[in-house]
């Protein structure tokens, strides 16, 4: 379903993604793990047509995301790391807008909106403005929205960030249910290792833009001689903390970039 070969993305002299290759099979739940700033989000942006690679190739359901952007966009749903709902609109209106943007016919749109909002337990609140929703409700709505047009692939970029254990647990149960029910391929990132171990069939770990290991959770533990995925992860990526926010000079550079056209 997803095929990545020798993918590279550089910003100036920084290699955000450095020659990665991986395959995700249809119907699979695939976890893409790595410390902050390792290149996860950059990779997802390239997979979802938002960013063009410096070199290398990507196939989404056999199509190139740059050359066939529109066709590729129809095939996936995405839940971004940061919320992307219109807060002023209601849950139902956000769904409606998404359905029209994706060219889903009126009848199907309404039927699927009802079905998905019920599954994610938001149907009773469908006419409330999103700004009144809790963090967990917003996340669930985003996932429901991402699935409205029956995509073949669902990208989830840290969907459980900041949610309590109950909500996280329920959310993954629902995602697993949809993966079973609609055979949607799921490509997810998370910092919660036990989540990845629980839901994902296969896992890849990226660090400094390179894939340092991939396989099932059991394989990764075996490779590193550890007995939990968390330990395996730490062994592979080290224990030092990654600086995402740089020095003040970096921040000045970021400001300058804003005036040049804000590419990042």
């Amino acid at each position, binding site marked *: 379903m997803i095929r990545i070969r020798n993918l590279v993305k550089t910003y100036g002299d920084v290699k955000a993604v450095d020659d990665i290759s991986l395959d995700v099979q249809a119907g699979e739940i695939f976890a893409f793990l790595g410390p902050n700033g390792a290149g996860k989000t950059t990779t997802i942006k390239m997979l979802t047509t*938002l960013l063009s690679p410096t070199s290398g190739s990507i196939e989404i359901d056999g199509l190139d995301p740059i050359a066939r952007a529109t066709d590729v966009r129809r095939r996936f749903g*995405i839940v*971004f790391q940061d*919320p992307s*709902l219109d807060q002023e*609109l209601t849950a139902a*209106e956000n769904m409606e807008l998404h359905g029209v943007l994706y060219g889903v016919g009126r009848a199907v749109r309404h039927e699927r909106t009802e079905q998905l909002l019920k599954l994610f337990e938001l149907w009773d609140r469908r006419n409330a403005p999103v700004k009144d929703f809790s963090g967990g409700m917003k996340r669930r709505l985003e996932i429901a929205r991402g699935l409205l047009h029956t995509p073949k692939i669902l990208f989830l970029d840290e969907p459980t960030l900041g949610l309590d254990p109950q909500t996280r647990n329920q959310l993954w149960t629902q995602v697993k249910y949809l993966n079973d029910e609609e055979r949607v391929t799921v490509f997810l990132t998370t910092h919660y290792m036990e989540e990845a171990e629980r839901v994902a069939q296969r896992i890849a770990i990226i660090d400094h833009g390179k894939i340092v290991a991939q396989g099932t959770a059991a394989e990764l533990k075996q490779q590193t001689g550890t007995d939990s995925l968390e330990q395996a992860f730490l062994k592979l990526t080290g224990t030092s903390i990654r600086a995402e926010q740089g020095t003040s000079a970096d921040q000045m550079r970021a*400001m300058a970039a*804003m005036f040049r056209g*804000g590419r990042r």
Partner: protein
Amino acid sequence: MNVVYVLWLRQLKRYFRSRARIVGSLGQPLLFLVSLGFGFGPVFRQAGQGNYIQFLAPGVIAMTVLFSAIFNGIELIWDRQFGFLKETLVAPVPRLTIMIGRTLGGATTAVLQGLVVALICMLVGFRPGGVAGFLGGLLFMVLIAVMFTALGTAIASVLSDFQGFQMVMNFLVMPMFFLSGALFPLTGLPRALDLIARVDPLSYGVDGLRTSLTGLSHFGAGTDLAVLSVLTVVLLLTGSRLFSKIQI
């Protein structure tokens, strides 16, 4: 077509739901109208220029449309900051369609806002002439609205956060308003000011609006219409070009 409609509708819903913004944005035009209108009224009359409210009202209406339109365009930065922009950018829809839907929606609310201010002007004593004049005025309001929403969108496409907003207001929008002939007649100005007024696109908007509503003309309605139409097309094209280049 559906997509344009649904994005247009979104802008309208957002507009009608933020009552605070509607009321808040009426404050400034009202202040200009009452303080300048009544304050400079006697001087204006003594200078033999007639009723100042009659002269000022089209300028204040143009100002309202200008500010709302620019703001609606720049609202794109909010969408970028609060994430909704990404939802539209990954949708299987050409960016041009998204830009058109947004711009039409923003322009519609700017015109609505202008109509509300026109009504207030009439309460204060402004008397526009006839139905034909009103329809002409509406046409100019639409042109001002579309042009400046497109300009706002173009600017917002290259700024990635709020920091630049103040700069745009102080160095572009405010001068454009104050030097457009919205507040004073453009006749007999110093050369430099006259030149600036001629390159200020809003001058033609104010003049067209004033010509339609009151019959007072500086450039002539034909010139106004021609300049505004060409500029609107140019800004729409520039705006959609910059919009389609946004990367997040």
